[in-house]
């Protein structure tokens, strides 16, 4: 196996890691969304269209694609602002379904076969650079005012109101940020594979995302990153088909929720690391 193959796996893993971070940041505010794969799709389609049909330069297309995804996410969050918990998740699931049906039936966007003909622009170093920026951002985010407000919204709404945090705005912000990150991932992916199909952003992608966060741990952002890399690389290396992948991912998801709900990374490791930082 040559270096090119490792680079390929690393790039795919990196994109999934960015996606996982997008899901994770929204999850930090207590909102478990099944629409983040759809946001990735929005980012991918938008970026792909802008670069291949409108001729925009690659970085700009990705950025605008991500902003489109962020806007979509914010609008959805506004619509769903009265919902929480299980209902919220199901409503996001419904939104994702709507989006997929629309995409599949839209000839301009390529229908079921998806958007094709996008120039291959993404390199491993770009993905890693984005990831690095995100890691640094997350390190500062945890103790920032925004990060604290997210966790306050998650942990119980009465205390948050007392702290002067606008519940609805924080939740919309959490969706917007998550949508933005997922949009970046989408833009990078469409310019790496050259195509984006509606099936790629459906239920299976959502299950994979959930698995990354549940396995990687709900409380620390590096867990999902690691899980994303591991669970993208392993199936590739073991030549598992995409359907087999889903079956295995969902099985792991179930097992972890039942047996080790806090995630695989043991807590003492995390707290020692945090203390060392201070």
């Amino acid at each position, binding site marked *: 196996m040559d270096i090119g193959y490792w680079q390929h796996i690393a790039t795919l893993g990196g994109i999934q890691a960015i996606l996982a971070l997008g899901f994770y940041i929204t999850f930090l505010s207590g909102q478990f969304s099944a629409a983040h794969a759809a946001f990735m799709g929005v980012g991918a389609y938008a970026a792909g269209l802008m670069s291949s049909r409108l001729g925009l330069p690659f970085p700009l297309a990705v950025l605008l694609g991500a902003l489109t995804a962020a806007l979509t996410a914010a609008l959805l969050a506004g619509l*769903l602002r009265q919902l929480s918990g299980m209902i919220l998740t199901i*409503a996001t699931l419904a939104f994702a379904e709507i989006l997929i049906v629309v995409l599949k039936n839209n000839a301009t966007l390529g229908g079921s076969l998806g958007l094709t003909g996008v120039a291959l622009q993404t390199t491993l170093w770009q993905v890693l650079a984005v990831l690095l920026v995100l890691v640094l951002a997350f390190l500062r985010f945890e103790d920032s005012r925004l990060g604290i407000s997210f966790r306050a919204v998650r942990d119980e709404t009465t205390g948050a109101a007392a702290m002067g945090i606008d519940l609805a705005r924080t939740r919309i912000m959490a969706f917007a940020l998550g949508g933005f990150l997922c949009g970046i991932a989408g833009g990078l992916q469409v310019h790496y594979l050259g195509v984006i199909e509606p099936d790629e952003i459906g239920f299976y992608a959502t299950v994979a995302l*959930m698995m990354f966060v549940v396995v990687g741990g709900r409380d620390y952002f590096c867990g999902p990153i690691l899980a994303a890399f591991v669970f993208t690389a392993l199936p590739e290396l073991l030549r598992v088909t995409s359907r087999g992948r889903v079956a295995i991912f969902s099985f792991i998801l179930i097992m972890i929720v039942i047996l080790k709900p806090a995630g695989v990374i043991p807590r003492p490791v995390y707290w020692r690391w945090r203390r060392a930082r201070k």
Partner: protein
Amino acid sequence: MFWEQVINGLALGSIYALIAVGYSLQLSILRVFNLAHGEIMMLSTFAGFVGLSHGLGFALSIALSVASGVVLGLLLERLTLRPIKGNDDLAPLIVTIGVGAMLQSGAVLIFGFAQLAFPRPPVSGFELGTAYVTLVQITILAVGLAALIVLNLLIHCTRFGRAVRATAELPGIAQAFGVNVSRIKLTAIGFSSGMGALAGVLIAMNYGIVTPFLGATFALKALMVVIVGGRGSINGAFFGGLMLGLLEIVVAGEFMSAYRDAIAFAVLLAFVCLRPQGLLPRAHLR
């Protein structure tokens, strides 16, 4: 032609109703949105399909399908839901999402992506005024009506029904007065999964096809019907399902049939956002 559409709509609606009532029961008694319900229904339908392919008659295959549904439902509760009881609100949902995905991808691995032809019963149908009604449709309507009547009688007029309602409202207190809550939960999920299996088989016989995506197609919409109809209201879920079926066929069937699913979801989503508590806001099982 119109009346035929109405009957089609009622038949589809009865299917949604059967599935939705199953969700509603599970939500009230097990406190979980069981997103694996549709996939259990799908797998049970495949069980019936396998039975038919091996020469079991229609009656036996339907029985096999219902039995599979019951067993799968019981396994779900025992193996995955009971161990995580009490952890938090989200864990059961995540688990059922996982189980659903696992069952669906498993079915794809076994049966493939394609739609398989599902045998239809030999007696087809007859004229009813200007409409042509198939035997399967009559069966669907009959089963739906029977389910509605039986459930209402059971829940409101029997000692068992009282125990179920008590469990749905205050499980700890019900237990303190002698209700075997664990058994009620198993009965609830077994019954609703069996009912879902029956719905699945009827779908397969009605449309003549079965696919691993049968659950995904029908179940999510039925789930949203439950939310709109008011969680805990069996009758709300039932009539909501009927309404959805009628609307889907009679209204949206006229145009943009490809977008029918999207429209249905959009309407349901709008309802959910405008009235999160549902149309009939009963907190507990009625």
